[in-house]
């Protein structure tokens, strides 16, 4: 079994269409599928709804798809780092559905696990709960949130084997796991494709059953907030 494609465009061949729902991994600019986002930009599909915790920054990550007006709606928990996003949102060109971060992650996880909805305390008594079914369990009030099943998932991992088993690195794992599981089709971009048998089966973070296509390439891995401390003088 070889799921490896020669380029991001090749890996997306036949999977893209206007008005589709895409789930994207990443947190801020950490662990985002930057090669696949660029390939979606080049493909020119429009009217996209994108479920992603953040919306990238101007000119990088999902910000690239905003600049080309390919995104109709974002489902996100925090979008503060993108001036073009705010301009389009405030002018009514872009729809935005705020989801609490954990609710968004669980909506993806549930969608991928065949669970159409789940009850959570998160957001009870806030604008998030408006219009949602409320239910009491053991004296506490919960709201019903729906699972997300995406037409396509795009994720970024550190290593893959040709069967699609993925290993992530540090906090770049983030939304990539739940996003990958909730797609009808999942394309993963990785820093390195390693031979079958070279990943320890006990340390696979995401089994290949969730991953349909793989592409590798050079990643910029931009840092959003570079914070450092000074070394003590010796």
């Amino acid at each position: 079994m070889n799921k490896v494609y020669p380029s991001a465009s090749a890996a997306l061949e036949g999977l893209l269409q206007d008005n589709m729902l895409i789930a994207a991994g990443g947190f801020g600019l950490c662990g985002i599928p930057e090669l696949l986002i660029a390939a979606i930009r080049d493909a020119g599909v429009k009217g996209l709804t994108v479920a992603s915790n953040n919306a990238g920054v101007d000119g990088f990550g999902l910000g690239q798809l905003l600049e080309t007006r390919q995104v109709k709606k974002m489902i996100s928990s925090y979008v503060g780092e993108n001036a073009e996003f705010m301009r389009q949102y405030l002018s009514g060109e872009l729809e935005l559905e705020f989801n609490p971060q954990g609710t968004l992650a669980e909506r993806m996880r549930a969608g991928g696990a065949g669970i159409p909805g789940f009850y959570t305390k998160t957001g009870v008594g806030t604008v998030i709960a408006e219009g949602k079914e409320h239910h009491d369990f053991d004296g506490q009030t919960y709201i019903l949130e729906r699972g997300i099943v995406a037409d396509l998932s795009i994720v970024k991992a550190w290593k893959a084997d040709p069967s699609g088993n993925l290993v992530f690195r540090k906090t770049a794992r983030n939304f990539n796991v739940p996003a990958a599981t909730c797609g009808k089709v999942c394309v993963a971009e990785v820093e390195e494709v390693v031979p079958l048998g070279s990943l320890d089966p006990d340390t696979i973070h995401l089994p290949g059953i969730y991953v349909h296509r793989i592409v590798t390439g050079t990643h910029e891995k931009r840092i959003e907030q570079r914070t450092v401390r000074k070394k003590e003088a010796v």
Partner: protein
Amino acid sequence: MAGESKGWDRNQMAARAAQELRDGMYVNLGIGIPTLVANYIPEGISVTLQSENGMLGMGPFPFEGEEDPDLINAGKQTITELPQTAYFDSATSFAMIRGGKIAMAILGAMEVSETGDLANWMIPGKLVKGMGGAMDLVAGVGRVVVVMDHTSKHGESKVLKACTLPLTGKAVVNRIITNLGVLDVVPGGLKIVVLADGVTEAELRAATEATILG
């Protein structure tokens, strides 16, 4: 006089908040003054900091040249790992938050009410960036401590009978630490735990719209 800075400064508020920590706790610190709490963890107390993007055991900022784009905190800042660090995905991260496994969150606030309502994510008419993980944290963790200025720049109380801003959570705050002192949310209103240095009870009461018992 309204608007004068009185009582504790930012670092003193963070140091007071650090006294809430107990040995062995798993804790989530919000952005702003709560981040400073990590600088004041009392000697002999070991706490594990959670970063909700998917990490337990958050270390300090890296040395220059050692930044790793794959290692950031929930504020998107570069950080480091510790010997006890564990990484996990976002769904697992919020499962431990929602599941009550995180003992305490220390968060900033725009407004807080006498019934423990918290508003810290949205000002209508202003730029709205989103709630991030704040709604999940206040609904899920064992104890919520807010650290905030007691009054606005114009001297208006931010400790209110009822919040005016959209809520992050309803009846979720346990303890309020401000520049003027520490207050607990109890049935019927707020109870003074301690006054900040140089602040009188009359001054605290005058700066508070919420009901203070006793």
